């Protein structure tokens, strides 16, 4: 991974593409829950979750590849843990929304759901921002620095 420019770039590209789809789908569903385009059936919109979970799997696989390429760079950086925590919580909220709305027409969104949609947007913004800041905040690139 580290020595092949193509492999590293490919993992980075797949990670970005998959992240764009996961965050994009979550933004769309959150926008609907918050009140945009109220005539779209939430149950129908949540069909996009099937695509979302495929993209999430690609985030995990490419993320693991990037982590294995430069483990010290990520694991010594607190921003990495912030990204992983926000990503995990964001996906848990996605799972909750999917369980609540998928194939269940006539479900109305209450105040608690709307608040959770705002939290979801916030978590995805934190995930994106932390992801970008990872490249600028690391102190250690290689573990060999300690040997």
């Amino acid at each position, binding site marked *: 991974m580290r020595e092949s*420019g193509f492999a590293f*770039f490919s993992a*980075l*590209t797949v990670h*970005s*593409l998959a*992240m*764009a*789809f996961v*965050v*994009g*789908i*979550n*933004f*769309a569903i959150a*926008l*609907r829950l918050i009140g*945009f*385009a109220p*005539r*779209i*059936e939430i*149950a*129908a*919109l949540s*069909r*996009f979750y099937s*695509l979302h979970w495929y993209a999430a799997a690609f985030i995990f696989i490419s993320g693991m590849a990037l982590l294995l390429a430069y483990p010290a760079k990520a694991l010594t950086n607190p921003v990495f843990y912030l990204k992983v925590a926000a990503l995990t919580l964001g996906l848990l909220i996605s799972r909750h929304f999917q369980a609540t709305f998928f194939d269940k027409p006539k479900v109305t969104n209450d105040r608690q759901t709307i608040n959770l949609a705002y939290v979801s947007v916030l978590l*995805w*913004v934190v995930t*994106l*921002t932390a*992801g*970008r*800041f990872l*490249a*600028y905040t690391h102190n250690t690139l290689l573990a060999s620095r300690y040997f």
Partner: protein
Amino acid sequence: MIEILLSFSQATGIYSFMNSPWGWPVAESIHFFGLCLLVGTVGLFDLRMMGFAKEISLAELHRLVPAGVAGYSLNVVTGIMFLSTAPDQYIYNPAVQSKFFFMLIAGINMMFFYATTAKQVKSGTAIVGVVFRAKAIAAISLACWCGVIICGRLITYYRPPYHWCLWC
């Protein structure tokens, strides 16, 4: 061209902001946020036109597109900030040139959609030929935005003067 862009950046304070400790990553984060909004609205509309989640009315899903336009606006603003702060790193970069090419195709494709197909698609009265055209337009749009993301990631790997460009 480079001098004009740099002068603009310096005169507007963009240059100082982008060269502050967190200016560049903040702009990059906003740039990717805008792109996600675009994928989550225009991308989902494209997927729906291609036949995904047929239960959703295209006219209703189209109501989310303004959020995608807002995301695109964020991309334009932050994109200008990148370009004007380090024009030599962008203008002669083949990844940036390819990214602009995909954006151009996506723009022409969008204009073609609104001129020829949008009305029938949104009203749900599209006949077979129109449906096929709509699917082709959606596939081109989605491919272009994926191309934009891929080229965006490639920018850092093709920094001049070590790499070729299309016209130099």
